[in-house]
């Protein structure tokens, strides 16, 4: 009995050993299979980019059609914005017709008595008889319509003008069979005539008369000396003097019968073939204002446009090449005016003056080459160019819509020059605006690029992580040889292209070293949600805004096509990645 009671007592111990359910571990409600993957600092190495050369970036982001035509690469590999143009001018001809004159003739006659001359010293000879004359012919000519380009004339060159002087005797008595007549006379030609082959204007003849009793002398005239031009006309009031003697020799007739007898002297002068070819003088030639408007707005690549863009280039220059055959040097004046819309940016106007050399002849052209710029450091690349200093770096800052190039030229009216009449004078102007990408400290530009993210697990996972408040981090190390500081931030759009409330803190890629060598530095970009993200939204793309800027320590370093940036990239979620065990176990 005691043993049985003891048995029951031991059995009662079992009452203590009763399993107790812990309601906290209610497995019927399932288990949250969310897990943290890889720890709170997991960074997924994405990889490294290739060395992204500036050339490839420019090819991708150069932007609008046509901009490629203006972004060139100089011989040293530096990028440059280059615009060029060409224009030709014709100078107004100075017509010879305006300076031509009709042939001009004047004649007269006079009765002159034969006189006995002085014993000539020929004791055994019969002294000659003389007909002395001293007459004047009046010339009065005019050029009535002097071309307007002529300010004043020194001389007119004639091609084959002449003065014909004609002397003849009438009513001449019989002089006997052996009688002969010669003339010794001097002709005083007008000073305004430039005689060819003669230094003065006195022409002497000593010749026998022709059988018909005439003497004809043709004196070539090379040119005309010109005096004042009054009211567009040039007047010549000149005289031709004829003085001399007819000498009657070997006259077998009694001199007494001849002496005193009057003979009619006829004389005339003809100024003919007055055809000018060249002129010497002062001229008022000018080139009408030449204006060309260069469309900057459509010529710049997209990343150089925008309200935030500051195009600060340290070494822009303008190459001018003017070829002309005009034999007059003239002064050229060029105005560069940036326009914003229709309004000129007065503060950016540049005025440049240049002297253009004259050609040696109308058949040859002379080159006038100028480099107009801030500094002459690129001059050595353009042999034969002359440097003209001008502060062109303000032309593109602020960014104009267009740039007007105005050119005018005029000859000096103070000096005398030679012009060939009826000649086509012309000038060709080649201009090239070269803006090497040697950036000033204030240079700023920017562009955007959209990167698509294909719908799928990756996009959904990243969206879920951002929706849960996590911060996505892209980071790594970058090598940058571009002399530009790059700052970038990212916005996200959903699968329909609508902006998501997701943005980033600025990531920064510092520029290369001041000596142009590549810089190696860490970089980091954080992306997070600014506001709740719609449950149905998923990241469909990223908009990357990139701003590039120069700086004091890197200004002036050329930006070349071989400059590059290279990135190593890893992806991290602050707080770690999360996933669901069931999803992770699924295989495709």
């Amino acid at each position, binding site marked *: 009995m005691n043993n049985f009671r*003891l048995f029951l007592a031991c059995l009662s111990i079992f009452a203590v050993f009763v399993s107790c359910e812990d309601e906290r571990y209610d497995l019927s409600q399932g288990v949250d299979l969310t897990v943290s993957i890889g720890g709170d600092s997991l960074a997924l190495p994405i990889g490294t980019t290739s060395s992204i050369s500036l050339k490839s970036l420019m090819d991708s982001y150069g932007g609008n059609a046509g901009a490629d035509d203006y972004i060139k690469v100089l011989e040293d590999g530096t990028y440059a914005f280059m615009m060029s143009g060409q224009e030709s001018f014709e100078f107004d001809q100075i017509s010879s017709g305006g300076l031509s004159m009709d042939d001009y003739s004047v004649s007269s006659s006079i009765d002159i008595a034969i006189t006995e001359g002085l014993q000539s010293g020929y004791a055994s000879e019969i002294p000659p008889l003389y007909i002395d004359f001293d007459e004047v012919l009046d010339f009065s000519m005019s050029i009535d319509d002097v071309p307007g380009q002529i300010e004043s004339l020194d001389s007119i060159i004639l091609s084959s003008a002449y003065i014909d002087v004609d002397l003849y005797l009438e009513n001449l008595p019989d002089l006997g069979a052996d009688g002969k007549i010669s003339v010794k006379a001097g002709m005083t030609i007008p000073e305004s005539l430039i005689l060819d082959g003669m230094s003065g204007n006195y022409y002497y003849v000593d010749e026998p008369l022709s059988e018909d009793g005439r003497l004809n002398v043709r004196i070539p005239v090379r040119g005309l000396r010109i005096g004042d031009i009054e009211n567009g006309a040039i007047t010549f009031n000149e005289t031709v003097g004829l003085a001399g003697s007819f000498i009657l020799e070997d006259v077998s007739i009694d001199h007494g019968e001849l002496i005193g007898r009057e003979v009619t002297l006829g004389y005339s002068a003809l100024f003919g073939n007055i055809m000018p070819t060249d002129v010497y003088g002062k001229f008022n030639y000018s080139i009408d204002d030449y204006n060309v408007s260069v469309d900057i707005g459509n010529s710049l690549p997209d990343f150089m446009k925008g309200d935030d863009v500051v195009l600060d280039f340290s070494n822009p220059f303008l190459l001018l090449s003017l070829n002309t055959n005009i034999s007059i040097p003239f002064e050229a004046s060029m105005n560069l005016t940036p326009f914003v819309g229709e309004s000129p940016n007065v503060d950016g106007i540049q005025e440049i003056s240049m002297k253009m050399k004259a050609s040696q002849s109308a058949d040859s052209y002379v080159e006038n080459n100028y480099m107009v710029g801030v500094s002459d450091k690129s001059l050595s690349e353009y042999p034969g160019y002359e440097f003209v200093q001008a502060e062109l770096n303000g032309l593109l800052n602020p960014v104009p819509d267009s740039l007007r190039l105005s050119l005018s030229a005029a000859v000096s009216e103070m000096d005398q020059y030679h012009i060939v009449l009826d000649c086509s004078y012309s000038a060709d102007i080649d201009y090239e605006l070269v803006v090497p990408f040697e950036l000033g400290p204030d240079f700023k530009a920017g562009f955007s690029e959209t990167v698509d993210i294909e719908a799928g697990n990756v996009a959904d996972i990243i969206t879920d992580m951002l929706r849960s408040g996590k911060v996505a981090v892209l980071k790594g190390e970058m090598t940058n040889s571009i002399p530009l500081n790059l700052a970038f931030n990212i916005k996200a759009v959903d699968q329909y292209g609508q902006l998501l409330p997701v943005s980033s803190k600025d990531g920064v890629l510092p520029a290369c070293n001041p000596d142009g060598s590549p810089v190696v530095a860490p970089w980091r970009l954080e992306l997070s949600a600014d506001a709740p993200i719609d449950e149905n939204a998923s990241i469909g793309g990223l908009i990357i805004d990139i701003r590039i800027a120069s700086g004091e320590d890197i200004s002036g370093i050329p930006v070349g096509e071989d400059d590059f940036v290279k990135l190593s990239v890893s992806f991290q979620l602050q707080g770690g990645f999360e996933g669901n065990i069931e999803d992770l176990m699924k295989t495709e």
Partner: protein
Amino acid sequence: MKKIIFIILAACVSLSAASQTLQTNYFVKSSSDRNTLNPAFAPYHGYVSLLHTNLSIESNLSVDKFLYPMADGSLATFLHPDISAKNALSAFRKVNYLNADFGMNLFSIGSFSKSGNAFWTIELGLKYDMETSVPYGLFDFLKRGMHDSNTAYSISNISTRHEAMLHLSTAYSRNINDNLRVGGRLKLLASLARADVAVERMDIKMSDEEWRVRTKMSGRLAFAPMHLSVSGNNEFNMDWDMSSIAPAGYGAAIDLGAEYKFDGILEGLNVSAAVTDLGFMYYSSSALSGIGSDKEIVYTGAENIDFTGSDIGSQFEEIGQMFQDMIVMENKPVDKSLTRMLSARFYIGAEYELLNDIMSVGLLYQGRFGVNRYYNELTASYNLRPCEWFALSLSYSFLNAYNTIGWALHLTPPAGLNFYIGSDYTFFKTAARPYVLPLKSTYANIEFGLSVPIQGFKMKKLRQQGN
């Protein structure tokens, strides 16, 4: 006095060790099963076993180390981001193991000799066991991952072993004298299949720029009808040859045991000792196939990635594919046969009978060499046998990962059916229904058996004559 001793023995510390046989049965004299713990033991009568099954799981990993109640009433895994690493990792040990056993007798008979002295058994059984070992470092890596910009892990000795085998055994025990009884068992073993996978070492270095993993691992399969290989693209190929259906390996083992009953002043004190599974398994090379990996893989991402106008999503897809291509397994042909020693166990017990052996108290020490660790356990038990056909044993095990309470109930009438059921590890805290899972410990086993007694009345009479 014996009552006092019995009450005192209420507090015990549990220990755990995977045991194929209920160790709570060790001091249950009517148990037909305890013979497998010490071949010197004999039950009250012979038997023909109709059903004998045991299932055990032991691990120092428990449900509450993997699942955590959240503030909102839900459950989350230890990998949940809201569970701190400190809390989660404090639950794990330097070596974390999970072992499981399943055994069933296909045929078993035990019988006494005519004199009732000797007892012999014949058994044919099927057993499956598994051992898995996971170091703390792996959980640390899973939970903390990359926790700063340069993180390194060195994880070694991850292993798992699975084996199914048939065993045919015969045991014999007898009294040497009034005090000493000895016994032994001879087991013939046939391995149906065995698989071992071991990661000897895994070195992981993670930084922003690269992930570097060096893994040295090996896997071996012993399964005669199928040869396992791996092709270049990490595809596993199973080549079946049904003509070579045969055990993957053969082995033998012996069990030895002894029991000494004191008399005189120490009468009632019984001490016993046994060693079991002293043996080996042999696997021929033709049944073995091996794969392995001893490579360092470095992932630095893709070269020449393009973010300008490209599809970032496809970039990540490529990265995912790259990870899949990182793991490279290669064949490790096994040209030598393999012989391995079995995990021997030894038992040392002491029992003191009380109240004319109506009850007793006992202390049992068990030791076992596992794949990666040594297991030992100390079990204190209280055994109640108010009559020959009823026995109840309560035990408390300690010295291992958990202290647990065990129990066993034996109904062994001399005729009819004999039934027993018991568990060495009783869990009190479970997850809420419908899943009855132990919460605080993962030591559990259950064993039950059904048999038909033979020689019941004969042995009862002989025992009565002996007393």
